[in-house]
């Protein structure tokens, strides 16, 4: 019972973060919000007894993807500033 409540709360946070990622004006905050979705998704995977998937989601979803998005954002801003 307590597990279902925790999973429900985590899923609600993920939904809110997804809305933030879509609707926020600042792209940086949108990228961070999408990283937070992956972080909470990995916790949910542990509660659903899938630790293999949880490790993948935590390392790829919330570390590598976010950093690649930030590199690309930085690059785009530089080329925008030049024009």
């Amino acid at each position, binding site marked *: 019972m307590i597990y279902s409540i925790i999973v429900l709360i985590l899923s609600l946070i993920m939904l809110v973060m997804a809305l933030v990622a879509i609707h926020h004006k600042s792209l940086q905050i949108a990228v961070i919000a999408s990283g937070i979705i992956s972080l909470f998704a990995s916790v949910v995977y542990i509660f659903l007894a899938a*630790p*293999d998937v*949880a*490790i*993948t989601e935590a*390392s*790829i979803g919330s*570390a*590598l993807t976010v*950093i*690649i998005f930030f*590199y*690309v954002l*930085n*690059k785009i801003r*530089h*080329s925008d500033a030049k024009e």
Partner: protein
Amino acid sequence: MLRNSLRVIIIAALGWILFQVYSGYSSRDELNELAGYYATEGLSEVGAANLVTSVVVTYRGLDTLGEVTILFLTALIIGLMLKAEHRGDRTRLRESSEFLVTASHVLLPVIFMVGVYIFINGHLTPGGGFQGGAILASTLILMLLSFTNSKISHKVLEITESVSGISFIVLGILGVILAGGFLDNKILPLGEFGKLFSAGAIPVIYSFIGLKVGAELSTIILEFNQIQGTDDKSL
């Protein structure tokens, strides 16, 4: 008006499809034939404590080879697209903060060891080559963030990547010659259940996969890092 009504129709159709799926759904109490075979016979046939690993590396080893190939192609294409003209003559970056640098001196070896632990113990504990490789690549991120002016050699990553890729294929072919088929793990003795050197060739295969994935993801990160601050018109 027409566009809006079209949207409503599409949403209603999707809702109808999902409702059909939902109303026809009933949870199963037992595994189907194939999954049941993996769950019951996997322990004695493969000898890995982590059943996910025995499926990923042995029963479905060919699919894993496909995944590794896709990742390799991705790294290759990114390297091709991001070919910057003047690599190297970038402006010197500002030094990172004292906190980050000091913390990375402590954390870098620990995170690296965790990554290596995850892929060497892939047959005993959760995780495996892909997860361990991703953690190895995240140490590279921390390194690039904290030691901003360090030089990381592409050559080392390339050699690691190709040597482990070739060894992975050679182990697979050895399985055809010495044991039951491509990527069969019985080319080495199964050993005692639960020990580090058990489950045949799985620890060896997963170590090569881990090194390969780690090198590929590191190459991708490094490519993206090296186009920062360069002045190229190709993008």
